[in-house]
């Protein structure tokens, strides 16, 4: 069940909300609303593939048991290793077995295969959440909750499928806390608003950019060389598509949880406004970066040690981060490229010294450079193979020639004629759709670079749990739960709902 599906919005969600708030009114067992959420989360997960419910049950059951053992046992480290090994083996089998065998086979040529293994939804997300919990118990930074709360922490439907990767320290207290009856309506209002913003980003924006990016990457996969403009527009479209898709999903997740009175952590904070690559990673998929930092980079040694050691830690963390996204070398290369970016940035920071403060021009250059660097890296992330990525890079750097699309000059034949006479090709480009595409790309960039993000827009309402390194400032245009905004968001919601005819999956579902 997709968040952007009618069944979810018009049937599942009202049922969940009705049940949750209805049960809260009953003067019986006060855990009933949470049990209801657990039941509905299990139903939500089972909607795709019932058989993987068993996997979810085994994974959470075993992790809970191991967590209790770590909590009580003297030999915490042994049980922790067992727990992490179990999680990694599960992940390796379901996500990486095919990839590992394929590579071993290409090395040894023994025709080794593992058959078809369907990747269970959300396995990357719930595995990381549980590893973090086990590690924190072993560090005596977490306790053992009731099994209901733990199972809900793992399977809570708003964040189960594609994050945010929640931390037990954020969720458990919220599950244990008695719901604040005073804020019920306020939570619903904020939740509806965030959900609508996310739905609009996904259905209206991301799916529109998909129309422009997909043909370009598919053409590259077929071995077609693209023209310069096609390659740039396709890559730019994908850059915007991925952002609106994933941040839209995250907004919806945060909004859904908020309707139930739960505040989820922030996952996106205008990443394309970042002035450098380090800042980009503090703003893009924030909960994954946090996991990698706290449970991989810092245990590896983090910033301590020699320059070579730190560089190694950064590179390894980013390579593993890349591999987490998918079982393919292109993802590893994408992670490696970001690792290199981060090293370059460290070197630059080192050279310019502590006292340097960039002026407006410097900041603008920083945003532009970061955006272009990130965009170039997305090519590896999206391309189906290295060969396809190389083809796109060739086109991006002008090795396939420059040609303008005829559609750009609709109604301006004189301009087209002038360009042709100047020796510039003006043709009907297959993968570039002229003015409409240009208009959408411009609109997408304006939103990314200049508009306040959803959380700045709702800053006064504590829309999400904000990490320490980010400060949430109220935007000039800010949301209030008044009639005017209710009308605006009702219309945005209707627009999105009417555009949902073609259901499209979220890009991060595959991870």
């Amino acid at each position, binding site marked *: 069940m997709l968040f952007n599906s009618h069944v979810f919005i*018009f049937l599942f969600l009202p049922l969940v909300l009705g049940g949750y708030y209805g049960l809260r009114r009953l003067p019986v067992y006060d855990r009933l609303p949470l049990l209801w959420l657990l039941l509905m989360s299990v139903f939500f997960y089972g909607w795709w593939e019932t058989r993987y419910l068993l996997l979810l049950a085994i994974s959470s059951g075993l992790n809970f048991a191991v967590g209790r053992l770590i909590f009580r046992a003297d030999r915490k480290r042994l049980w922790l290793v067992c727990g992490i090994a179990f999680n990694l083996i599960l992940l390796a089998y379901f996500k990486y077995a095919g990839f590992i065998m394929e590579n071993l086979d290409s090395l040894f040529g023994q025709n080794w295969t593992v058959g078809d293994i369907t990747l269970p939804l959300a396995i990357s997300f719930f595995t990381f959440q549980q590893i973090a919990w086990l590690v924190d118990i072993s560090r005596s930074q977490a306790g053992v909750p009731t099994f209901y709360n733990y199972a809900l922490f793992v399977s809570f439907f708003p964040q189960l499928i594609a994050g945010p990767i929640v931390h037990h320290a954020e969720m458990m207290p919220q599950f244990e806390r008695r719901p604040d009856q005073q804020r019920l*309506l306020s939570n619903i*209002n904020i939740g509806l608003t965030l959900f609508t913003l996310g739905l609009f980003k996904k259905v209206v924006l991301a799916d529109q950019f998909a129309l422009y990016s997909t043909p370009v990457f598919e053409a590259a996969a077929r*071995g077609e060389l693209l023209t310069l403009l096609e390659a740039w527009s396709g890559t730019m479209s994908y850059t915007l598509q991925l952002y609106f898709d994933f941040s839209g999903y995250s907004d919806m997740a945060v909004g859904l949880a908020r309707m139930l009175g739960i505040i989820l952590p922030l996952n996106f904070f205008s990443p394309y406004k970042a002035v450098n690559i380090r800042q980009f990673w503090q703003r893009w998929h924030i909960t994954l970066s946090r996991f990698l930092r706290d449970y991989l980079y810092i245990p590896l040694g983090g910033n301590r040690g020699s320059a070579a050691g730190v560089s190694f830690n950064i590179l390894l963390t980013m390579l593993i981060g890349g591999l987490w996204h998918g079982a393919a070398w292109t993802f590893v290369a994408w992670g490696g490229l970001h690792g290199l970016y981060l090293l370059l940035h460290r070197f630059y920071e080192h050279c310019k010294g502590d006292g340097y403060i960039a002026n407006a021009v410097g900041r603008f250059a920083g945003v532009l450079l970061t955006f272009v660097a990130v965009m170039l890296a997305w090519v590896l992330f999206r391309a189906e193979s290295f060969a396809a990525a190389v083809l796109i890079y060739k086109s991006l750097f002008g090795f396939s020639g420059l040609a303008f699309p005829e559609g750009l000059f609709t109604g301006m034949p004189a301009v087209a004629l002038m360009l042709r006479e100047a020796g510039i090709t003006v043709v009907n480009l297959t993968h570039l759709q002229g003015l409409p595409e240009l208009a959408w790309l411009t609109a997408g960039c304006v939103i990314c670079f200049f508009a306040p993000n959803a959380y700045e827009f709702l800053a006064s309402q504590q829309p999400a749990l904000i990490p320490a390194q980010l400060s949430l400032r109220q935007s000039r245009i800010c949301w209030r739960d*008044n009639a005017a905004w209710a009308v605006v968001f009702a*219309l945005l*919601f209707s627009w999105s709902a*009417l555009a949902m005819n073609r259901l499209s999956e979220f890009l991060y579902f595959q991870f």
Partner: protein
Amino acid sequence: MKKSSYSLIFVSLSMLTMLAVAALNYLIDPLMYYHAPWTVINVSNDHRHGNPGLARQLDYRIALLGTSHIMELESARLGEIMGEPSLNLPINAGLIREQVELAKLVLRQGKAHTILWEMNFPSFSAGDQVGTGADEFPSYLYKPTVETPFRYLLSFDTLLQSRKALQNPGSVTLDNRNQQPVREYSQERVLRAWDFYMQSWTPALRRIWIEYQKKVESPELLLETQLLPLFRQYPEVEFKLFLPPSSVMFFLLHESMGNQDFAHLLAFRNALARISEQTTNAQVYDFQADFDTIMNLDLFRDLEHYNEDVLENMFVQMRQGANRVDRARMEENTRQLKMQVHAYGKMFCGSQPQSCPDTLLDRLGLPSAASSGKQQ
């Protein structure tokens, strides 16, 4: 303002907007999904979206399923040939799974006693998949689910179709929805199509194709898993399966790919006859062994699309029982087809089909195709 007012305004206004759109879409029902039209019939020329409504609302005893090969035959003309009310339900570039879904929908209506079904080999090349992207297959219109009313009625796409239906009522009809802009049939057009395919079919694309074919179910398996159960489920319905007469260049193209495509095509033909013998209500008609037709390139507008005479003649013959084949006859036809294509190919490719030239337009005017093939 009370906090409850925000939610109240949000929910009521969005519901009102959506209900208004849904009501309008329901009243106009541009795809005739819920009811027959109140004034003129509006037919969608998007087959994937338009066919379910036609199958549900119109009256027919014979349904014709297939791809672009059968598109140009008007339902009324088919009815004249077959002697009973008929409905042509083609899906342009239709995949077999899409056709099966349409067949199930047709059969569930209980109107047809005969299904004429074109067995186009390329339809089987995507395995069990349905169209995506621009050719997205709207499964919700074929298999009614709880989502169907939402996706059909709560939709901008439907709203646009409703507007079109209001602005130009009856502009697209059953008779004109499939008319092709090109009605020119010649050897030149066939050779031009050959050149186009050979030049677009890059080595990278061929590699991708071969890998893809390894991943999807084979055509033979699809016949067993998709078609046979359907024949058995509806024993009272007669299924007339026919192999359309593509030009010899189509077969040669498959042979020249060098990836066993032609061998698979031949195996598919034999499998079709074999499968049909496992049930009493399926018959197979083979028009690919009509060598006078397939080798006369002047009857085609590209590698596989024939003219209206050839199209109509197939149904005339089927009605008469001509060209019906059993397993033994099919195997003999297949052997003949293989021989004829080899012989014909020698004219262009020598003894190595893989060395067929990328461009053949310069061979325009080659000797009468039919006779040269037969002389070998």
